[in-house]
């Protein structure tokens, strides 16, 4: 899986660029129910990743994921840094170097558990977990179906709109958080969608 440097480099660059391109949208979502910094923070993290792109691409996939996670932890500045950082570092830690699709499912599961522990949260509280948990279920059903995964993540982000926030700054709003998409759910869906589409385009997904 992503065994050559150029495909890793392209994937990292594409995902980081997608986050940067959507920074304003993420910030607008966060202004509605949070503190309005999600896009700015994620963009800062993505820029830190791009600044280190060559050395991150040099690493194996598991080591690269850990490296990206650490960059996000150190540079993002909001709660999303440790949350996304924990996800990627746990994913890298759990993924064997020569892993296949089944290893990805187990690693994704481990990473999801780590984010739940870090955020002291669980699915159903209008957070990124409401995208990551359905994404795991989709991977379990078929780990080689990027189009289905991308669609499931997008639908899961939409499904946070009618939910009431129970974690993070949005929870201060109580019922007023209903009617807005959760920014963390949106950024998670965006990243999953970009990864899936990139892998699909390069044919990587079929071989994993």
């Amino acid at each position: 899986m992503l065994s050559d440097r150029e495909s890793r480099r392209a994937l990292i660059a594409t995902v980081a660029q997608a986050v940067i391109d959507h920074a304003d949208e993420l910030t607008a979502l966060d202004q509605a129910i949070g503190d309005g910094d999600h896009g700015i923070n994620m963009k800062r993290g993505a820029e830190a990743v791009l600044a280190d792109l060559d050395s991150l691409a040099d690493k194996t996939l598991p080591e690269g994921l850990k490296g990206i996670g650490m960059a996000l932890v150190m540079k993002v500045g909001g709660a999303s840094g440790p949350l996304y950082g924990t996800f990627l570092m746990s994913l890298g830690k759990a993924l064997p170097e020569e892993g296949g699709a089944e290893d990805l499912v187990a690693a994704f599961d481990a990473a999801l558990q780590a984010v739940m522990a870090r955020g002291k949260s669980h699915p159903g509280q209008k957070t990124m977990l409401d995208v990551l948990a359905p994404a795991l279920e989709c991977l379990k059903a078929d780990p080689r179906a990027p189009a289905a995964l991308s669609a499931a993540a997008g639908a899961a982000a939409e499904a946070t709109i009618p939910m009431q926030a129970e974690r993070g700054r949005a929870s201060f709003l109580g019922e007023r958080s209903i009617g807005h998409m959760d920014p963390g759910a949106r950024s998670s869906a965006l990243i999953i969608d970009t990864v899936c589409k990139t892998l699909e385009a390069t044919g990587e997904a079929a071989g994993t």
Partner: protein
Amino acid sequence: MSKENVGIVIVSHSSDVARGTADMVRQMVGDEVPLAWCGGDPDGGLGTSVETILGAIDQAWSQAGVAILVDLGGAETNSEMAIEMQPEERRSRIAICNAPIVEGAVMAATEASGGASLDIVRQTAEELSPG
């Protein structure tokens, strides 16, 4: 400054709040506790940064441990991350206090200045929290 006493670290989203809280601790409690503060994201905006929290923990480090006071969500999450990145022998000697940042910092520092243990310092700060 005594390095025997528990150190206090103040982590706010705002460097002004963090510095102001530290000023209050210094004036009300004095110089008997190691004290450090940090606030703001890596670009100087509102937010918190693991990197600066790590630096503040180093600055306030004491053999008796360090009590951290935080304001909102991200400050706590980033502080937890910073604790996990510490050498193992330090981790159990750092505690995040579930307390209001200003009152908690003053109460924790007052307790620490008398030589109380980290557990007692934290409990004293947390008495300020409802429930």
